[in-house]
């Protein structure tokens, strides 16, 4: 790996850390901008919790000191404080519970999207302008344009309510089928289109003509020369795709009642559970930033041309 690449990666890592710091800060100060403050402005907070908060954050101390205390707690101990609304639970525990479920959901959805997307996109590019290509393009355009919550609710309606094939509730393994499919649809459609246009682009390149002129067979050209080049843009989409899955899970988990971190986040907002809001926001944001960072790094590593430039 060239030093130029290493330097670039280092820059990206620093940017990512700065971003996370900014997110934490925005979250913190935004919460405290609420009239009455996030903790005291809410009624019905049990005295026990209030005590814990007081001890932790020193609620009458100057704002900036509260900020540094909070920051230190996170960075050193992963401690986000107690939940306001869920009695006796620490935010970090709630987060970890939800994270397990959500990660499982997301990884499977990503794998499905990648596998199907690559295959369908390649087929579409090789059978350009035929019926199957047009069909694939129409379907993917639809999926790419429909908001995820629309897809989710419609799928819920059709398969869970009307046809009753799968359970509507996402807590059981069988109940995970619908949320996984819903989550994978947008990235799958996107990857299909990306693969298709990338393949078409590659197939028109001069080096493909060279390979043909050398006498390479058709499968050799597609599988060897074309695919390796065509995959590059898809790999760079990896990061954004994973980031999408994180945000998409917010909606999907709500629709299908999946007990993941996305649902915890949304509920915390509507329920005004401020420590939980802060905690989930920071974790989710850090996840997204991490995904984007991974995507950037992969992009650099994959294309030898780019690392040269």
């Amino acid at each position, binding site marked *: 790996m060239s030093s130029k690449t290493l330097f670039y990666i280092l820059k990206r890592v620093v*940017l990512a850390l700065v*971003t996370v710091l900014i997110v934490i800060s*925005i979250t913190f100060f935004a919460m405290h901008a609420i009239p009455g403050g996030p903790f005291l402005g809410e009624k019905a907070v049990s005295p026990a919790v209030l005590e814990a908060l007081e001890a932790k954050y020193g609620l009458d101390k100057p704002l900036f000191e509260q900020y540094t205390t909070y920051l230190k707690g996170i960075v050193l101990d992963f401690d986000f404080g107690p939940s306001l609304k869920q009695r006796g639970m620490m935010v970090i525990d709630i987060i970890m519970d939800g994270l397990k479920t959500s990660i499982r959901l997301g990884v499977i959805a990503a794998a499905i999207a990648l596998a199907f997307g690559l295959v369908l996109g390649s087929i579409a590019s090789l059978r350009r302008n035929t019926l199957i290509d047009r069909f694939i393009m129409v379907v993917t355009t639809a999926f790419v*344009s429909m*908001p995820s919550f*629309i897809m989710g*609710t419609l799928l819920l309606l059709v398969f869970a309510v009307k046809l009753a094939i799968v359970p509507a509730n996402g807590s059981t393994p069988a109940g995970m089928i619908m949320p996984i499919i819903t989550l994978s649809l947008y990235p799958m459609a996107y990857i299909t289109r990306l693969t298709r246009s990338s393949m078409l682009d590659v197939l028109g390149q001069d080096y493909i003509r060279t390979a043909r002129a050398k006498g390479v067979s058709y499968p050799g050209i597609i599988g060897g020369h074309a695919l390796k080049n065509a995959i590059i843009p898809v790999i760079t989409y990896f990061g954004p795709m994973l980031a999408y899955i994180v945000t998409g899970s*917010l909606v999907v988990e709500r629709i299908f009642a999946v007990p993941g971190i996305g649902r915890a986040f949304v509920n915390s*907002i509507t329920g005004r559970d401020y420590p939980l809001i802060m905690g989930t926001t920071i974790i989710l944001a850090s996840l997204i930033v991490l995904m984007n960072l991974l995507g950037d790094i992969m992009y650099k590593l994959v294309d030898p041309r780019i690392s040269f430039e």
Partner: protein
Amino acid sequence: MKKNPLSMHIDVDAFIPATAEEKKYLVQMRESSTFFRDGARRLRKNKVAMFSLIVIVLIILSSIILPMFWPYSYEEQLGVRPGKRVDPSFNNLSPFEYGTTEQARIDAGESVFPHIFGTDSAGRDYFIRVVYGTRISLSVGFFASIIVLIIGLVVGSIAGYFGGKLDLIIMRIVDIIYSLPDTLMVILLAAILRVTLGNRLEGTALESIGSNILSLFIIFALLYWVSMARLVRGQILSLKEEEYVLSAKATGAKGGWIIRKHLLPNSISVIIISTALQIPSAIFTESYLSFLGLGVNAPMPSLGSLASDALNGINSYAYRLVIPAIAISLIVLSLNLLGDGLRDAFDPKLNR
């Protein structure tokens, strides 16, 4: 001398030199026209884009016109009359059903305007709520995109034109905002602004817009201008480079002509297309937030909030979910297809 069988019949006159007109006749030059006319022609040929355009125009027109003469308003709960007991017969009407008092009027010979989509659980005419929701979604999407365009245009132009340290600082800020996870921040800020703004707006002119929609605009203004700024800056930089190169070639007046004829329309069209594609994205975001409960204030409907409400009654009133779902999908899809069509028609780099 070789015997070359060159046998043919020739008209001796044919060996007279050809005139310039005769030659020109054979050379059919393809008509050249301006960049925009070319693009418009290409767009018109694109059937999908044209169809989408018609759909959008129809949707916009109906969302503007229909509420003007529709006898029901989006917030009017038909079963609630001041001073009288709440009449529950108006709630959850199926399409084309009527509440008790309405039925009575029909029996008496009056004609009552039908509830095409029935009513919701609070007795409000659903059709007009959907239409109004469309209006909200469209206007939010449109105005948010305009805000993004203006801010991005200004910042990007400054960065690109002045360059140097100013450019560097602005671009660092752009990088940081760009790497923030936007949906998350949007949700967070929406939640905060709801609460903080709500109180402050009472009594001001902005109250009618609603604190939620206002917070949406603020969020867009804060976060979404960055891609536009980058785009504008990139265009300005390439314009500067062309100018430099052209003047270095010392072609005099021709330099400015080329910039005006080719580069400027190119840049403008790229910016317009980007804005056009920003609109469905904004509508998407707005309905997403409304779905999560962070969008418009009740009782104002948004297609997203209507879909969210319908989730509760999904078992018995499935159509209440399907209708706003179709509406949003139609709007976003048509706008996307139109935007794609615009890009295909006006992007000179795309070779067909």
